[in-house]
């Protein structure tokens, strides 16, 4: 009997332990500031890890959790994005939505220098750290938690990049060129001084392609998601505002459809 009880206890402990892992992705990276934290060996990288949400049973890829310097540097901050500071839950509990860390960003940016590109944060599926499949045909939605530090509403724009289609580069050209009647950006409003979980359904994700005559057409739905390069959020350039805009960002998830 004792043996059976022991086995049950072990099973419970194991389950609890696994659930804990599922709730919060375990990263073998020390928080010790004296450890050069992006010098991990290849084997320690978290490749292709799908997480199960304990509460809902949904599965998702965690593409940005910003738990430490190493994780934060695996995200591409583009078009003069600005300054990124790591935030810890122990110091600013209300500025972290998942795990122990998030980032605080101060946006710079100048679209004129950047070929009409807005400052953007790019959650890539193809870098060596995540090494995910680029096939997101089964994507349900992409979510990102953004805290708008301004006391006014701010817009952010979601864009889908494929391996060969850089939506950020084409975003405004498509809008302004009369030959292209499509926009590929989904615009979301961030409420002032609060967190917004931006939720982008897979159905609205799209990009533009061109046929042999040069005519543009939209690719959307699972067709658009079979070769994802990155999920991107862009922001206003810094110089448009008297003081640079600031945000906290955390918890980028790509939720997959139930199997």
């Amino acid at each position, binding site marked *: 009997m004792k043996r059976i009880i022991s086995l049950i206890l072990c099973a419970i402990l194991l389950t609890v332990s696994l659930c804990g892992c599922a709730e919060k992705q375990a990263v073998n990276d020390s928080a010790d*500031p*004296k*450890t*050069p*934290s*992006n*010098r*991990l060996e290849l084997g320690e*990288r978290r490749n292709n890890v799908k997480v199960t949400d304990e509460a809902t049973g949904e599965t998702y890829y965690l593409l940005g959790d910003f738990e430490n*310097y190493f994780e*934060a*540097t*695996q*995200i*591409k*901050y*583009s*078009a*003069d*994005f*600005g*300054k*990124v*500071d*790591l935030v810890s839950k122990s110091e600013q509990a209300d500025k972290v939505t998942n795990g122990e860390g998030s*980032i605080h960003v*101060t946006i*710079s940016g*100048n679209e*004129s*220098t*950047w*070929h*009409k590109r807005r400052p953007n944060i790019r959650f*890539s599926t*193809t*870098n*060596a*750290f995540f090494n995910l499949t680029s096939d997101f045909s089964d994507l349900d939605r992409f979510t990102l938690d953004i805290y708008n530090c301004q006391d006014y509403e701010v817009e952010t724009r979601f864009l889908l990049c494929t*391996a060969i289609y850089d939506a950020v580069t084409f975003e405004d050209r498509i809008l302004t060129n009369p030959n292209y009647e499509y926009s590929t950006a989904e615009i979301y409003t961030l409420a002032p001084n609060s967190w917004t979980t931006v939720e982008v359904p897979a159905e609205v994700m799209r990009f533009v392609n061109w046929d042999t005559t040069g005519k543009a057409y939209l690719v959307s739905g699972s067709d658009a998601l079979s070769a994802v*390069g990155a999920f991107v959020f862009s922001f206003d350039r*810094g*110089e448009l505002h008297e003081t640079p805009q600031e945000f906290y960002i955390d918890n980028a998830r790509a939720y997959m459809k139930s199997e």
Partner: protein
Amino acid sequence: MTAKRLAALLCVFALCATLCSCGNAVKTAGGSSLTLWGESSGVKYLQNDGGEAAASRAASHTSLEVSMVRNETEAVQLMMYAKKDIAEYNVTVSDLVCGDSIIPSSAIQVYDELYQQFMTTTRPGNPDYAGGMIPDPLLPMATAVEYGETTIAKGDNQAVLIDITTTAGTAAGLYSGVVTVTADGEEYTLPLNVKVYDINIDDGDELQTVFAILDRDQFASAELDSSDAMAEAYFEMLLKYNMSCPLPFEGNGGAERYVELLRKYYHYDGFTSYRLYYETAGSVYAGVGTNVNLPLMQQYIYAIAMASVEDRVNYLDKAYAYFYTDVDEPDVEEEFLRAKETVNLYFQMLYDCDEMLRSELIGTDDYHYYVDVVSDTLTNIPDVIPGSYDINDVKHYGLDRLTVCPELSAMSTPADRRDYAQGRDFVDLWVYTCWGPVYPYPGGHTDDTQLSYRTIPWMCDEFNWSTYLMWSTSDYLWREHGEVITDPWGEMHTGQPRPGDGKLTYPGATYGLKGPCPSLRMVTWRDGADDYQVLNILRRLYEEKGLDASVALDAIYREIYDVGLIPNRDNDRFDAARLSLLDMIDNLKAGTDVYYSEVAVGIKEATIAFVPASSEAVVTLDGKQQTPDAEGVYRFNIDLTKQSRFVFDLTVGDKTQTYTRQLINGVLGAVESFETIGDLADCIVSYISDYKASVSEDFAHDGVKSAKMVLNSAAVADTVPYFAIEKDSALIGGSWKGLDSLKAYIYNPSDEMINLSVSYYTDEDTTMDVFELPSGQWTLVQVTFPSAEELADIDDIQEIDFNFDRGQSVTVYMDSIATVKEVAAE
């Protein structure tokens, strides 16, 4: 036990004994775990070389030796070889003392060298680096200790780089200090000696450099920061290594902010160029649509010109335009035509800007300064397009105003260099390295020989290339798809097809530092750029005498790289050549050297002429006092069949110094210049069926004729066209004994490159060397005879064969053939 095993054991014993003795050769205090030795900054050893470097170097390099000038930073390396695992070490350097003068320890920076694993190398032909753990990143020693990077595994090397900085006020002299190593409780010391010459580096012009950070994306993800402050940290650090980048500016604040930055940095050491800011929103200029916003660019140039007038500083003289997002490395007609349109519009914009400024300033006090100083600069701000395009395309498409910037290897022959320079005297010639070239040419790749990058500034000096360009310095993105590199400290160099290309710095954020960390390649570049300034000091001294320093420098250049731009890989030889330059300047300033006015090396004879720096100097040759001509010039003719160098004594006051000018390597033996058909018969034969040899006036390297060889191997399928120099020919006289090499000049009259393989024939062919003979020029072909280890009896060689591509018909001319005797025979 077999004899083989016994031999192997003896070898191991010998190696151990050597390593032990290496340790004992160094003055240590209580330590036996490390073998220490000193190296200049021009070498790098694999971390895991099996103790080879320690065994060969430690016993003879028991101190750290540096030679430098005033107001310079120069590096030296401390090498450590671990005889057991080392858990922690630290390195400190004392003040350096010379009498009452001191170089304080605060002027000395110590860096730990980190190593990167190379699975493959871009330089498979390079015997120095076949792959392995190669040093490159430099981490401040205190940070390395703090982050636990200071460990050494048993049997590994660990290098430490020590940067020493002098000021303009540092007194010349020999400074001494001590390098102290603590390792797992043991302490070691090594002497550090620094000779400071009485030469101020600022007396020489800086080499103009164009190093870039194309955009802040390149470093932003690794640093988590693309702010102006971070951009300035990168910019300022790169300046310290003589790497001038575009100003840290992204358009915010407009022309006013841009001018503010220019005013701040214009006088910084190392700030030698800046790319004019431009935006790509597209615009119309002079009725022509262009991808570049030229009206906005004009506003910036206008603002800079006005600041120049206001400050009486010509800020535009370091400016250049490079529309890399519009046209880069043109290759096809469409790109050349677009380049032409952009270049023409750009210069029209400059002229229009000049007119605007003249109108604005006329009648003011500033007008004359503008017209006299700024205007000409403004209308000639270079527009550069790098690329290995043919110079004939530049002429064909009328790109007269374009500043040409070929890849270094595109100018590897004298004819190439002449082609790029000819007829474009009004436009500077730049040079760049990037993805290419690769070994054996120099460049900024991580897996190249450490000395390699240092040689480029020397080439810039010799060939009058005004500017060196490197497309990026701090690109922590994968070049293929622009995504972030997971670990820039390791991965960016090991996984790239051209490791280190565009990636010279390392992100400091990894180690909690604000701003980038440097690399070994940056150090070697900096020291090379400093050499360029020293070369310029010598040039100025010669110019003051109305002479060209190239005459003196030719011999030094050839110690550093050959005429084909292949660097010498022997660091000791480089160090000796550099010291001879420093000594030459020092002695000229002291009046105890000579200014060479002519050194002409012919096929059999050389002429040498010089003027002593001091009018009171006495020149003695073989114990006899010499007499100069009426203009004070000493002139001598030297028979190169009797001597390979010229040696004389120079006495100034009570001080006599012996000077040697090496003219050729080895003494000439037999010489032939093919002036008669008899000369030809004495020398060359061929046994292919369709062969015709004659003495021709078509071309001549020496005299008025040369030997013309027409080899038609196509007539007999699958044969190799060749001709030969036989041992029993009149030229050789039946024996090769005592000869070091055979050399000749061969002319290729065709429009195509001709491949040549030179071999010796015993009872089989053995290749001695291969050559490419560029079209339309004479190429020196020199082959060295095999050593006694390679071939026991050199007279087993029946002939030296000159072989061309199989099945081809080839016509070449040969002239100035000579045997060169071993140096010992002199």
